[in-house]
């Protein structure tokens, strides 16, 4: 992605909204919406890893699922490799599925316990190709080699593997149809520290080898710093900041990004004790009833009057850095 020619966006998301209806009362009438994702836009360039970070309930997993149409988004557009995924009919959608795959958080829950590994990895091939059994098995072996699983284990069941190995099975399955784009939804959150590094290195190797583009969803900010080229920070269904990795970690611009980074404990006693932390007060408001104006205004240490009235738009405030905050808008600077 550091080629001289400007990189092409593989994934373009525009004003994506995903509302989940709330029904209540005896008649189960719709009385409101949980605004899990409330109008977000971003691009992911070919071969790039976009990190998507935020705390639980901020909507980051919903974004990943809505992109692949595992949910039906309420509004917006998602284009992957030039196809508008949201406007496709069922059959056309099925045909584009091989291009876009997902690696899930919990390898225990996302693998069928009654299927042997070869069947799990081969399932997308049986579904989307007309290959015979032998050709499929050959491809399964190839995939097992690629993710570092021993071919001898092809007839074993998921419970016979450790967490890290199960995650490798999930990755092999996602790779089966040679996708261009993979959504990794917290792929290492369920793994032990010493196993996380193995899986992250594998994901990076596969990216180099097959030219993959990742959306890497995680709450682990240090791991995202390692793997991502650019990072989007979400808060309560919206993007607060979207910046290149180095810029964000060296100098976060949005007050929420700043607080989030300062809250991460550093494995260095001297640094941990000297560092000035920003302790946010209170909890994240409910996405069913987000605050008026900026959704961070109830906890922001730098809140101004305008923040409680007007919703800030995500805008480029420095080259390549997009921030949704009134601190950087010209209007407030002038006034």
């Amino acid at each position, binding site marked *: 992605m550091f080629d001289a020619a400007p990189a092409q966006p593989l994934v373009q998301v525009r004003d994506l909204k995903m509302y989940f209806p709330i029904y209540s009362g005896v008649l189960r009438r719709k009385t409101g919406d949980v605004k899990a994702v409330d109008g977000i836009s971003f691009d992911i360039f070919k071969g790039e890893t976009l990190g998507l970070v935020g705390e639980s309930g901020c909507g980051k997993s919903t974004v990943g699922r809505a992109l692949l149409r595992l949910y039906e988004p309420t509004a917006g557009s998602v284009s992957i490799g030039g196809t508008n995924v949201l406007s496709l009919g069922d059959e056309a959608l099925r045909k584009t599925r091989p291009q876009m795959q997902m690696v899930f958080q919990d390898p225990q829950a996302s693998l069928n316990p009654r299927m042997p590994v070869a069947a799990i990895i081969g399932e997308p091939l049986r579904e989307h190709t007309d290959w015979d059994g032998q050709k499929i098995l050959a491809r399964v072996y190839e995939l097992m080699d690629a993710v570092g699983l021993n071919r001898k284990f092809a007839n074993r069941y998921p419970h016979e593997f450790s967490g890290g190995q199960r995650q490798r099975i999930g990755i092999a399955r996602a790779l089966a149809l040679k996708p261009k784009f993979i959504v990794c939804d917290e792929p290492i959150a369920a793994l032990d520290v010493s196993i996380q*590094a193995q899986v992250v290195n594998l994901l990076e190797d596969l990216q180099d080898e097959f030219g993959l583009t990742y959306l890497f969803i995680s709450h682990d900010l*240090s791991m995202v*710093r390692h793997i991502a080229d650019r990072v989007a920070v979400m808060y309560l269904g919206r993007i607060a900041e979207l910046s290149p990795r180095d810029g964000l970690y060296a100098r976060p611009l949005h007050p929420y990004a700043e607080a989030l980074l300062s*809250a991460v404990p*550093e494995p260095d006693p001297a640094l941990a004790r000297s560092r000035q*932390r920003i302790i*946010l007060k209170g909890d994240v408001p409910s996405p069913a009833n987000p605050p008026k104006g900026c959704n961070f205004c109830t906890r922001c240490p730098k809140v101004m009057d305008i923040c409680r009235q007007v919703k800030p738009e995500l805008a480029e405030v420095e080259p390549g850095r997009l921030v949704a905050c009134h601190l950087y808008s010209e209007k407030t600077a002038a006034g």
Partner: protein
Amino acid sequence: MPDQALPVLDVRGLKTVFRTRGGEVHAVNDVSFHLRPGELLGVVGESGSGKSVTMMSLVRLLPSPPADIRSGEVMLQGKDILKLRDEELRDVRGARVGFVFQDPMTSLNPVFTVGDQIAEPLIRHKGMTKAQAANRAVELLELVGISDARKRLSAYPHQFSGGMRQRVMIAVALACDPEVLIADEPTTALDVTIQAQILELVKDLRQKLGMAIVWITHDLGVIAGIADRVMVMYGGQVVEQAPVKELFTNPRHPYTRALLKTIPSLTGHRDARLQVIEGQPPILTAAPTACPFRPRCKHALDRCDRENPQRRALDDRPVGHGHDVACHWTPESADV
């Protein structure tokens, strides 16, 4: 914290075995440590390293069978609590040793109000009346930073957010002024900004109350910020133990060294590739005769196959007091 102060808690040679259909699992193998008044001991290890089982064994919280505490002493203020009868033990649990668990949703009872749950140990252990207990519950909720405490007494756990529930759990654990507080991954289920709030609260409470704390976690970052001393566990054993600064600046066990290198940093240099520890943690089906880290160790010697290393002191202080490590390898021997 003077070194000479008598430990509040002194655990010696603890061994816990689970008997399962598939055979025995030696979850905790000869673990010794002590806790001085006012000290915060961090216990680090991966899942299956035996850190939680060790702490649950202290006050016999594990169901038996399958758990079986084979040997060891747990001296609380000089008295072995493993030898206590069940009803005597009940006076220790929750009163002299408080517990905070990882998941505040499952460890609070959903059908009782928050006020009832804080009052329960006060009525049970301190013989307070309901009204006295309610007043004390308000004080405790204020202590852990919950505003409007009197009104909140009648709230149920589901009406609280994750961070607030964990504050309630801390209030319950602190209710009877325990001598020792055992916190088992208390912030793991919380978001980082909420974790930061809880860590601040614990630092603040330590200054106010001065109790001794055991803090179990897999997060070395959390440990670096709050612990005085750190004990690293692997495969049911203590592999290294040191004051916090010493452990981070001069780790000696190959596991500790590798672990510190596998975690990516938030600041400073960014490596192109993460360092990995190859292989898997061990399954402890028998009492170990070799070093449990042997199959994954970069520095393994022939001796490591034959002999499970004992903890040895690296300074002039006895094992458990300064920096000690259970490893045959030394950085110096690498040059030979």
